[in-house]
């Protein structure tokens, strides 16, 4: 395959960036999107040009490290992570626009890499349960009803990649936040800190500068783990209950 790539280049956070155009040839449709960028980077390296910086780690769709805005869609046209997106989803001769996640709480570090520490600080503000570590408890020590366990597990698949923020016209992290609130809120271990968790995490979300949710659903469509929109309803419900109980 022969492709024209329009890629955002930016030296560092303080510098201004711009779109640069690159031509790549002999791309196999069995390559992943990141392998296609690897091919381009090898060429740039050999030509003495600075390779394009992008994030990746596991390359099997479970770590949440990679994430690119591809032709205006977070992680591209398929419901998966960028590393699991393959070039067969594109056609020969196509022009592909590649940009970093755009949100002020996710500053661009270099080229296509963004700093998602804002998510870490949100987790630190309440996305945990406080228990003393020790020997693993018996699996049947704390019974969890099947429905709650299933819902908790479904939303616990969130890998924190930030596609929800990238896709949201308001730059809101409500889907990420809702996934964490629902995950811990469905489980017995999450109950003790349930009210303080939602209040503190929402406060941190706002403090980081993410926008508000308008319930339009671009986030859930972009989510590689298909986190459903109802986690945002759950988030709102938990916050409403916490406010009523005086938190």
């Amino acid at each position, binding site marked *: 395959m022969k492709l024209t790539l*329009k890629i*955002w280049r930016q030296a560092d956070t303080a510098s201004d960036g711009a*779109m640069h155009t690159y031509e790549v040839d002999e791309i196999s449709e069995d390559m992943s999107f990141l392998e296609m960028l690897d091919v381009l980077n090898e060429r740039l390296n050999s030509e003495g040009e600075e390779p394009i910086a992008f994030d990746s780690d596991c390359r099997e769709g479970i770590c949440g490290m990679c994430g690119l*805005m591809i*032709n*205006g*869609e977070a992680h591209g046209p398929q419901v998966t992570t960028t590393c699991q997106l393959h070039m067969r989803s594109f056609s020969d001769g196509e022009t592909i*626009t590649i*940009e970093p996640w*755009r*949100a*002020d*709480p996710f500053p661009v570090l270099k080229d296509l890499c963004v700093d998602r520490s804002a998510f870490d600080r949100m987790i630190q503000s309440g996305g945990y349960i406080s228990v003393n570590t020790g020997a693993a408890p018996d699996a049947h020590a704390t019974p969890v009803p099947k429905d709650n366990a299933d819902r908790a597990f479904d939303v616990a698949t969130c890998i924190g990649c930030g596609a929800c923020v990238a896709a949201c*016209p*308001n*730059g*809101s992290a409500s889907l990420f936040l809702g996934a964490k609130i629902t995950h811990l809120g469905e489980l017995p271990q999450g109950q003790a800190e349930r009210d303080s968790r939602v209040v503190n995490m*929402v*406060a941190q*979300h*706002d403090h980081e*500068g*993410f*926008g*508000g*949710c*308008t*319930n*339009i*659903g*671009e986030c*859930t*469509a*972009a989510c590689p783990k298909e986190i*459903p*929109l*109802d986690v*945002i*309803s*759950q*988030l*709102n*419900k*938990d*916050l*409403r209950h916490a*406010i009523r109980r005086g938190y």
Partner: protein
Amino acid sequence: MRSTIALKLMMAVSGIIFIGFVLLHMYGNLKAFSGHDAYNDYAHHLRTFGEPMLPYGGLLWVIRVVLVLSLVVHVYAAVTLWRRAKRARTVKYVVKKNKHSTYASHLMRWGGVTLLLFIVWHLLNFTIGKVNVDGGPTNDPYNLLVDSFSVWWLTLIYLVAMAMLGAHLHHGIWSSMQTLGLTNSVRERALAKRIGLVLALIITIGFSLVPVFVLAGVIDK
């Protein structure tokens, strides 16, 4: 209480108050199908409602105060959230697709501004200023209604405004239920969206009937 979600809750609750009001307003409008006297009697009864416990026009003033407060809250929350959303992405995408969300959901902000302008005109037209674009008298509510909607361009303004209202409600109703935390499953979300669509259609069509039938000459003096 200044969190984005608290602002959304204020937006949802004030919006639901507006929905209750427009349903009541629509019921009153449809009285036009019962003729001159029924319509004007209803307008009169709105003012004598609750007498002697309430003074003349007392109920209307209660409703007006609630509506103005709701409007202040709704607009304040909308403007604050709009500004926060703008600040959350100061560098725009070169290419951005929004293909999974409804057109109505993208009309909320500018559609809301349009509705606000319409409401100002509507109040000048029928309540505060009483403008008869036909040049006739303005002291008879039914006759003012018929005179107004006999003018095609005025009817057109109202029909466009009602389409905007319908779009606003189509997304706004289900969105308010989501904000209140009532849609915690696929089934509840589908139900909320259906309620939003059906109520939006009822309100848009219900309000459009009177102007259309006046213009068509079915409702006349």
